[in-house]
């Protein structure tokens, strides 16, 4: 089905419920992965994912089709996840990087994490990066999202994203080499 046709079904009250169920089915797994990579904890990812889909549904009328549906949905999910992290920072009164480090430290005890040493080391290395670099690295390395799509989602040029990813990789390699 063409994207335009699917968007028309999402906007038509008669076909909206069925189309939204399909959207949920198509996006729930990749979006969960995307959000979980940002917020780390499963329960937090669950909250953010549900809020993301509720927002997508409520704002369907505002979707103008100027960007791809994929980019629009991912943009909402990313904003929700970042807003959640920032709110948590304020509540705990610690910086974003300190919060990420703390969340990564808790991973070993997390029943929904079964990573080995190198996986934990990589998570720790990512936690040392600035928030935007973390996001770019996770989207490119873990999710393998194309730079062009990332550019639409994050509203940043592909050149800047490539540079950001390059810097992130260098810092991560230095961190893992030194630890």
């Amino acid at each position, binding site marked *: 089905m063409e994207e335009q046709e699917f968007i028309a079904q999402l906007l038509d009250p008669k076909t909206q419920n069925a189309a939204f169920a399909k959207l949920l089915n198509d996006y729930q797994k990749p979006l*969960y992965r995307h959000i979980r990579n940002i917020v780390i904890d499963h329960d937090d990812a669950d909250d953010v*994912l549900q809020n993301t889909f509720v927002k997508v549904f409520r704002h369907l009328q505002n979707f103008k089709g100027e960007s791809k549906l994929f980019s629009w949905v991912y943009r909402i999910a990313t904003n929700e996840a970042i807003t959640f992290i920032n709110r948590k920072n304020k509540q705990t009164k610690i910086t974003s990087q300190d919060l990420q480090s703390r969340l990564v430290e808790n991973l070993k005890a997390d029943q*929904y994490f*079964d990573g080995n040493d*190198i996986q934990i080391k*990589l998570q720790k290395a990512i936690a040392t990066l600035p928030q935007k670099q973390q996001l770019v690295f996770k989207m490119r390395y873990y999710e393998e999202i194309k730079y062009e799509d990332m550019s639409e989602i994050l509203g940043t040029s592909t050149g800047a994203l490539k540079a950001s990813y390059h810097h992130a990789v260098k810092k991560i*390699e230095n961190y893992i*080499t030194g630890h």
Partner: protein
Amino acid sequence: MKTFKLDEHPKITSGFKIPDGYFDGLQEKIQQKIDHEPTPVIALHSNKKTWIWAAAAVLIIATGIPLANYLSQPNVEIDSTTLENYLVRHTEISNEDIVELMDDEEIAKIRVDMKLEDRELEEALSGVNTIEDCLIN
């Protein structure tokens, strides 16, 4: 110490696990949230302050610009000599034009009684060297 290279290492996954059956109930939970959560309504009073500020800004701009223009203009008072010289040089302004701008009282004040005897006139004219000019004009 061996330098770690990310692209030379086998792909490292995140290590996150998803609880069994998590996605089975997700759709229903989201649908319930959509059905039961009231659609956020933007209260009119929440925009009240914005409107007040906008109105205040418009008022300040509307009154401020003319006031600023007025204050920025130099207050020039033209002395009567400059004015007279200007009027003399600008010959397109005729005496009739000037008279039209004056009321009867002002006209009466500048009226000159020209009842001269022939002898007085001749005496006055004899004292003028450029008599030809006077006669021609």
